[in-house]
């Protein structure tokens, strides 16, 4: 009898766990997401800001998508694809039976219409903005996508003018969400307020400056979203936003200040989620300014800065020290690189070797605005300044407003500067070529050796060869030390503990259709 009771009890317990587990995933509820700013527009191809992408990610789908939590590509609106031997023709088979929110069918014609609108400047609906990300990822207008052909109703073919190894990764990016052609035609310049895609949520209402309200799409081609409604509220002040979370008026928030991380971790009703890093914050030295043309000085700086201490002080420990210009979440990351360890003595020796035993003075530009990779530019600038003073070098802190800062660093006017990068498509090319190739670098780092490797990697379709090339590229960069790579931050997101199944993506935004509310 006793045994039976125990067994029954165990079965009951297991069953109840199982049952509540299933029950809890019930559909319904409203999730309120607090964030720092409002959406700029809801036509994803016209915007460049994360606050817009956060929302368009829910309304639209792309041909291919990132597997949640990674930068790997998986099928979405396209079920499968193949590429021709020369790497120039890509053929996609599209998903059957998908409808836009307005009831119009999704098909090859719609895909072609979207790409034509983006890439052809004389297209009647190439209006309403600058199509910035198209020009950026596909190199102008029409760019490298020469033709888009409808093979049949559910097959579409892209003909490229040159090989682009990260082509698939690019198509997975949220700006390339497919819009309903009929809706774009209907609303013209005002389409950005009337978005129609195939996504898990439809736009219910957008009160500009305040909130965006989304409702679940009952006809979603994947499973219907668990949540009935998502409200994105813009709450500009970090402290105010955190207090909203504490008082329960929002369910989750990003932009958690480092000083609030501990409060989140210690509160029962809150929890913390870390976004895998797809960024790098760095300190660059400009080769046009003496003595930064001397590799010994640059290496000395690399030895002089204690990255871990900076992370503990200014990131609440939520970042990893960088040794390469790209984060470990990106394939091709070279983990064999031996970082320049924190060693002021060695730094002094290197400086002496270069003839600067008495130090020197220079301008250190610090970031004027918080960025995901460097949230507190001034404090981190001061930290670097004090580390450098320990090896006898005097750094004068300088800054400008953000737009001027970008303009001047782009034109190589800064002797040394802090800056960073958030990846677009999860491809190493998007870090190494974009930031350090001789055609792009902002600090006059012009390595011919690196250029050859990076260009070859762009033209290679074979994944393994590409990995090898990027490994080699990271070695060259490490040897030349054009930067002090500082950190890869893992931006914290604070949630109420009943928000389940939220998987942050390294790319910065994610679909929320699998998120549900417990209780």
């Amino acid at each position, binding site marked *: 009898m006793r045994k039976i009771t125990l067994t029954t009890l165990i079965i009951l317990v297991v069953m109840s766990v199982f049952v509540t587990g299933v029950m809890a995933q019930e559909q319904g509820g*409203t999730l*309120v997401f607090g964030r720092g*700013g*409002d959406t*700029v*527009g809801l036509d994803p191809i*016209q915007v*460049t800001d994360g606050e817009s992408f956060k929302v368009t990610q829910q309304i639209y789908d792309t041909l291919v998508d990132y597997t949640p939590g990674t930068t790997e590509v998986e099928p979405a609106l396209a079920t499968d694809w193949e590429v021709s031997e020369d790497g120039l023709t890509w053929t996609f088979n599209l998903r059957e039976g998908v409808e836009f929110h307005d009831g119009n069918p999704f098909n090859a014609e719609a895909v072609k219409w979207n790409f034509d609108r983006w890439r052809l400047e004389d297209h009647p609906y190439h209006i*309403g*903005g*600058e199509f*910035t990300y198209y*020009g*950026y990822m596909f190199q*102008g207008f029409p760019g490298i996508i020469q033709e888009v052909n409808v093979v049949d109703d559910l097959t579409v073919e892209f003909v490229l003018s040159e090989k682009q190894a990260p082509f698939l990764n690019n198509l997975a990016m949220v700006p390339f969400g497919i819009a309903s052609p009929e809706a774009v035609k209907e609303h013209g*310049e005002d389409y*950005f*307020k009337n978005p129609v895609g195939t996504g898990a949520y439809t736009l219910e209402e957008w*009160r*500009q*400056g*305040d*909130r965006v309200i989304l409702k679940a799409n009952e006809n979603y081609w994947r499973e219907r979203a668990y949540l009935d409604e998502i*409200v994105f*509220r*813009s*709450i*500009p*002040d970090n*402290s*105010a*936003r955190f*207090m*909203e979370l*504490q*008082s329960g*008026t929002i369910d989750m928030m990003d932009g958690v200040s480092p000083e609030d991380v501990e409060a989140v971790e210690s509160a029962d009703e809150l929890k913390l989620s870390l976004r895998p890093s797809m960024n790098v914050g760095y300190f660059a030295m400009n080769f046009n300014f003496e003595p930064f043309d001397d590799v010994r000085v640059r290496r000395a700086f690399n030895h002089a800065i204690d990255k871990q201490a900076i992370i503990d002080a200014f990131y609440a420990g939520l970042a990893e020290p960088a040794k390469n210009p790209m984060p470990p979440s990106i394939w091709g990351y070279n983990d064999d690189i031996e970082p320049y360890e924190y060693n002021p003595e060695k730094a002094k020796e290197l400086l002496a070797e270069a003839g600067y035993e008495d130090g020197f003075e220079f301008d250190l530009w610090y970031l004027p605005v918080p960025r995901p990779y460097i949230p507190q530019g001034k404090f981190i600038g001061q930290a670097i300044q004090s580390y450098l003073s320990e090896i006898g070098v005097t750094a004068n802190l300088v800054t*400008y*407003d*953000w*737009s*001027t800062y*970008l*303009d*001047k660093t*782009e034109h190589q006017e800064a002797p040394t500067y802090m*800056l*960073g*990068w*958030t990846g677009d498509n999860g491809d190493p090319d998007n870090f190494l070529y*974009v930031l350090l190739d001789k055609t*792009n670098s902002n600090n006059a780092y012009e390595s011919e050796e690196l250029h050859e490797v990076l260009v070859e990697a762009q033209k290679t379709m074979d994944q393994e060869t590409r990995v090898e090339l990027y490994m080699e590229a990271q070695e060259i960069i490490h040897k030349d030390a054009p930067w002090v790579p500082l950190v890869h931050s893992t931006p914290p997101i604070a949630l109420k503990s009943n928000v389940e199944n939220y998987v942050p993506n390294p790319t910065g935004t994610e679909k929320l259709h699998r998120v549900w509310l417990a209780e």
Partner: protein
Amino acid sequence: MINYIIKRLLALIPILIGVAVIVFLIVHLIPGDPAQTMLGERATDEALQRLREQMGLNDPLPVQFWRYVKDLLRGDLGRSIMSNNPVSAELSQRFPATLELSFFAMVFAVVVGIPAGIFASVNQNSWFDNLSMLVALIGVSMPIFWLGLMFIWLFAVELGWFPPSSRIGVGLDFTPITNLYVIDSIIQLNFSALKDILHHLVLPAVALGTIPMAIIARMTRSSMLEVLRKDFIRTAYAKGLKRKIVIFKHALKNAMVPIITVVGLQFGVLLGGAVMTETIFSWPGLGKYLVDAIYARDFPIVQGGILFFAGVFVIVNLIVDLSYALVDPRIQYE
């Protein structure tokens, strides 16, 4: 009177033209441009050139100015570079939020400030006078972002009496029409929304109204003190009039002109300067938005917004001038 109003409104035109020219020059001559901020770290020279070309920023300044003036004369303020929304739509969306907040802040400031000032003046050097002037001094020097955060922490997080921020709660059935939420909810007879909206208004309005309240209290006190020393007050008392009547009918009316001036000026300042309050209380108003637009170098928004504020300022001043005649019949407008 009517002639005077028309004259004043006509004087708006040269003022606005002057503002338009100055603002245009300032926003176009400072370094950095919208293409730059839009691309952020992605601003390579090539990408920038392409974007600037598309935005028409590569044209010579006089050409851009001519285009701007031409559109302006047709009443077209252009479209936001960032969002592509018409500037007029952005302004009409956000200004009501600022107006509503400023109005209630001003109501608080006047309702508390003027009686406090009167009471302090008639009891000069009493404990109330000293205390209220100390409070007023603190109020004037209070950093509003700090006050706002303290309000949220105390009244929303700790005590839970008021919602922390925003204009209205989530999940209420409410459709904005004029974007003056109080009025919208009354028009729709939606009293549950009205209650929620007023509830949301209390903290930001009090936070925003604190500084003007302090200024008004101090001005009322000093203006009253001056009047109370006048001969006609002594005469009034000598006639055997009640203290209440002397203070409110004789003294206050005569002390009103400088008070109205201050109220008017403060209201103008609130309309344009609620940036901090709007930020802390997630209030989707025009102040915060304009500052963001300046950072983003969203030229059409900055130009349109400042032009709009200049107009509002002039009109508020006109209303202040006209209201002098109400309290002082000696003032007449030709």
